[in-house]
């Protein structure tokens, strides 16, 4: 119990840090705000420029970043549990590119297709890509290298197709490309509401089945011995892992490395059990993406960097560090 309480405290600290960064993010941008002015319009919105900056541009955007980061973190956590592979994440298992490719296809070739259904399309694609990757790596039980190479070849394949669709799309290419780099520019309350249910479903589902996750983390034989029906739970966990990505992809595009890095950083903080790991991973994923988003929109004012550049620069070294650790056997 002690462990549980201390990790609850850690999660609280992380969330407070995220709130502080969101608050700090309200001040920076193309038009900097003074703290007093920001506070004033935050509590008494008056419809003037400062108020619009805070209420329709900066606040919802940072919240969206937090939600997206939390969803990606949960997704990465579940994939790492499922594959028992520290390198798994939405990127390396092909889930992200699997979600993106059919959405790009629908955007370019089926313009009458309402964007409300994009998460469903993304989910179907993400699941299909994940199944192919898992099939290559023998359900994640093969060597970690198989998973990495299987995922990267699925991603390269879908990436080539996506690029070709982009070429055919003509004038839509620049806007699609900016979306494809992963970014939260101009995202407001609508987009936040749009992806929130998907992330909540993934996070809530993962928290609800934390006991099964705890058993699966032992090893598969032990889990089966404890009466866990693997053929039922593994597809369910995969579905839970794909749900957040399917909701996030249409809004924020493919954001690299957050799903990979967040569970590992959470593990460094030594959470008590699966439930607190999930909560901590979600909080950390949100924190990472909020911070990356604030950096991306304030470092090169008035230009805006795609957030994936920042997350790749943070996540790439984490990945390399993980690969170099001796405890992971290949």
């Amino acid at each position: 119990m002690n462990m549980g309480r201390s990790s609850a405290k850690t999660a609280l600290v992380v969330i407070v840090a995220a709130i502080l960064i969101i608050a700090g993010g309200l001040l920076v941008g193309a038009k900097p705000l003074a703290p007093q002015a920001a506070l004033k319009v935050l509590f008494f919105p008056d419809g003037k420029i400062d108020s619009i900056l805070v209420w329709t541009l900066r606040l919802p955007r940072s919240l969206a970043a937090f939600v997206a980061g939390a969803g990606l973190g949960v997704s990465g956590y579940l994939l790492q549990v499922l594959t028992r592979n520290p390198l798994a994440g939405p990127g390396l298992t092909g889930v992200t590119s699997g979600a993106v490719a059919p959405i790009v296809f629908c955007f370019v070739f089926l313009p009458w297709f309402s964007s409300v259904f994009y998460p469903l399309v993304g989910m179907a694609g993400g699941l299909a890509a994940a199944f192919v990757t898992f099939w290559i790596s023998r359900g994640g039980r093969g060597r970690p290298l198989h998973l990495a190479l299987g995922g990267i070849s699925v991603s390269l394949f879908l990436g080539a197709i996506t690029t070709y669709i982009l070429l055919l799309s003509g004038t839509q290419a620049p806007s699609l490309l900016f979306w494809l780099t992963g970014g939260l520019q101009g995202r407001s309350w609508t987009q936040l509401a749009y992806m929130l249910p998907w992330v909540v479903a993934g996070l809530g589902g993962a928290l609800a089945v934390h006991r099964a996750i705890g058993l699966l983390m032992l090893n598969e034989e032990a889990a089966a011995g404890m009466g866990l029906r693997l053929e039922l739970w593994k597809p369910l966990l995969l579905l839970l892992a794909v749900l957040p990505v399917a909701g996030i992809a249409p809004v924020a595009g493919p954001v690299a490395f957050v799903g990979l890095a967040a569970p590992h950083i959470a593990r460094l903080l030594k959470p008590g059990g699966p439930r607190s790991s999930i909560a901590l991973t979600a909080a950390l994923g949100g924190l990472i993406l909020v911070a990356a988003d604030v950096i991306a929109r304030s470092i090169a004012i008035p230009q805006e960097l795609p957030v994936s550049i920042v997350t790749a620069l943070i996540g790439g070294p984490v990945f390399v560090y993980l690969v170099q650790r001796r405890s992971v056997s290949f």
Partner: protein
Amino acid sequence: MTTTLDVRKPAPLWFLPATFLFALLSLSLALFLGVADVAPSDIIAVLTGHGSAEARSIIMEIRLPRILTGILAGVHFAVAGLLLQTITRNPLADPSIMGVSQGATLSVTIFLVFTVYIEDPGSNTLAAIPVEWLPAVGMLGGLVAGGIIYLLAFRRDLGPLRITLCGIAVGAVLHALAIGLIAGWGSARIEVLLEWLSGSLYARSWEHAVFLLPFTIAGLAVLPLIRRSLELLRFEAPVARSFGLSYRRQFSIVLLLSCGLASSAVGAVGPVVFVGLVVPHLARFLAGRHFALVLPLTVALGAIVVTLSDLVGRLAGQADEIPIGVVTAICGVPVLVAFLRKTP
């Protein structure tokens, strides 16, 4: 035990000339087929120095330089893949998996974005791409990526599989940077950059081939010199050292060569994926026990695969041709997946 040796039939020696003949055949096929209809008699007339002005311009200024650039690039990718697979002792290494192509992509993107803004601000014309610099710029980026992988690999004396995974990470970071750069600053030239990024032989001129050729010659000339170390680098480091190989030096030389070859080709035609992966496997399959045949077969097959993929992309897409990178990705993935399922 003897049966395991007998399973592989020794490849007949006519294999090599047959492959080169096939390479010639695919070259002429690519020359004779195309979206614009040119009668075969006209093409032969052009090749012997006659023919109408129209046929002459189609063959000599569009098809031939394009095919030759493709052949050079194919040889580059295939040899680079073979070298990488040898030194990492990983049958699935490839310049586009190991991050080398992404390094070249990033440097070329930076170069194109900056030269556009400095030389030609506010213009949407596509004529001013500094073709002659592309292979060298690409090579610079590829070498930097290779250097990063090398440092990561030798700082902790990593095994070949960890090197591959480091390469994947480095590649992902560099790729994100390149894409971000394009999205942030390249909007005036987005189509050119995209076409180049998907790996394309569209509108490749004599300039592309001529400026790539020195790299090809230099790379292929070094190959005979490092043949012995290549054979030894296939073994674990201690074994190779016990044969008297200065492992680290030879490893760096081969890595350098492989990065140089792959990234200069990326500069000219963009990152064509999977050629470097699939071709060495085909070559090894055909060569069987004759290790000496693998290298020449790789060269020939690299040329064939790229020429035929480009032909498929040209014919299948008609007016909107399919970039060769897309064709090779679609054909290469099933091969890769089959290999992955087969290797334990």
